[in-house]
């Protein structure tokens, strides 16, 4: 079995194209939130975890401080540690490969690997999706940032509405049962109630606290909320699955 005939590599590439493309929305929204083109590109190159990147610019566009953006991005990245543990068990990378694998450890690369049974296919799926997304995500971030910069007033083009849609789009695949929906509604309410009472950025951290307590004290599936934004299952032609 080599890379050319690997179904996992094919799924990885499809995922890379689908995920990489939406880097264009991150780029445009990054600039609209007040970051420079280079700062937006730096987030995609260095942070490289979509949810946290969107969180960072989401707090900035709401008028939050850099420290609040840092806090929201960091908390949202916590799930990547869980992915790292799973992938380390699955792929057992050594030396420099471990350092490289860590950087491309995100929802989609983890899900592509986890969707395979054969260890060789897990490896090919992970690296194709991870490296592919990294390249395309950065390319489209740059394009989006330059476009956003050229557009001028972001509100005129509805880019503030686009940010709302982007966050809902990231949340949606994780609302697969009644319990996560209840949690999402609760955290949304906490945020809205806190906005007039606390400095920008703090309402998000309050919602994070509520969510952490919910996870700590309630019982439920251990993989809840760890669904990828773009599901590799949809892209594998041999195992179709009805969703929702």
């Amino acid at each position, binding site marked *: 079995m080599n890379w050319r005939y690997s179904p996992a590599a094919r799924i990885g590439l499809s995922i890379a194209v689908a995920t990489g493309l*939406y880097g264009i*929305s991150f780029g445009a929204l990054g600039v609209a939130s007040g970051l420079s083109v280079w700062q937006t590109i*730096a*987030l995609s190159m*260095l*942070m490289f*975890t979509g949810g946290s990147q*969107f*969180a960072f610019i*989401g707090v900035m*566009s709401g008028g939050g401080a*850099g*420290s609040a*953006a840092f806090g929201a*991005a960091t908390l*949202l*990245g*916590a*799930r*990547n*540690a*869980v992915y*790292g*543990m799973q*992938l*380390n068990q699955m792929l057992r990378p050594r030396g420099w490969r*471990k350092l490289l694998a*860590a*950087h491309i*450890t995100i929802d989609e690369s983890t899900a592509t690997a986890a969707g395979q049974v054969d260890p060789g296919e897990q490896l090919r799926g992970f690296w194709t999706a991870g490296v592919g997304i990294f390249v395309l995500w950065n390319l489209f971030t740059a394009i989006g940032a330059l476009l956003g910069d050229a557009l001028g007033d972001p509100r005129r*083009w*509805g880019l*503030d*509405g*686009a940010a*709302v*849609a*982007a*966050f*809902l*789009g990231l*949340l949606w695949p*994780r609302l697969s049962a009644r319990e996560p929906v209840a949690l*999402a509604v609760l955290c*949304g309410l906490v945020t*809205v109630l806190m*906005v007039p009472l606390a400095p920008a950025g703090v*309402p*998000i951290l309050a*919602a*994070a606290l509520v*969510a*952490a307590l919910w*996870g*700590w004290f309630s019982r439920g599936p*251990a993989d*809840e*909320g*760890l669904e990828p934004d*773009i599901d590799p299952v949809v892209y594998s032609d041999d195992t179709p699955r009805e969703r929702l």
Partner: protein
Amino acid sequence: MPLWGWIVAASVVAYATKLAGYLVPPRLLENERMSRVAGTLTIGLLASLTAMNAFSAAQALVVDARVAALIAACIALWLRVPFLGVVVVGAAASAMLRFAGFG
């Protein structure tokens, strides 16, 4: 700290978080509570970010053209439009409402 400082700091911590997963003893993986909190945290933060970006303007609650984006995105996701399409639909809904003179 200037914004660049926060960008670099958040990126370093994001990488450290990922790498930590590769370095901790595998038996930690058996602790279901940890991955459960990571999951509920993800849902809570994304819900919070959605609400904040839809209804807040600095420290005030406002209802403006962004609500149209929220509703339109909801419908698009219900119809299984891909992510990028959802974002475009959201932008179009807000832009059109604003063009018509609301919010």
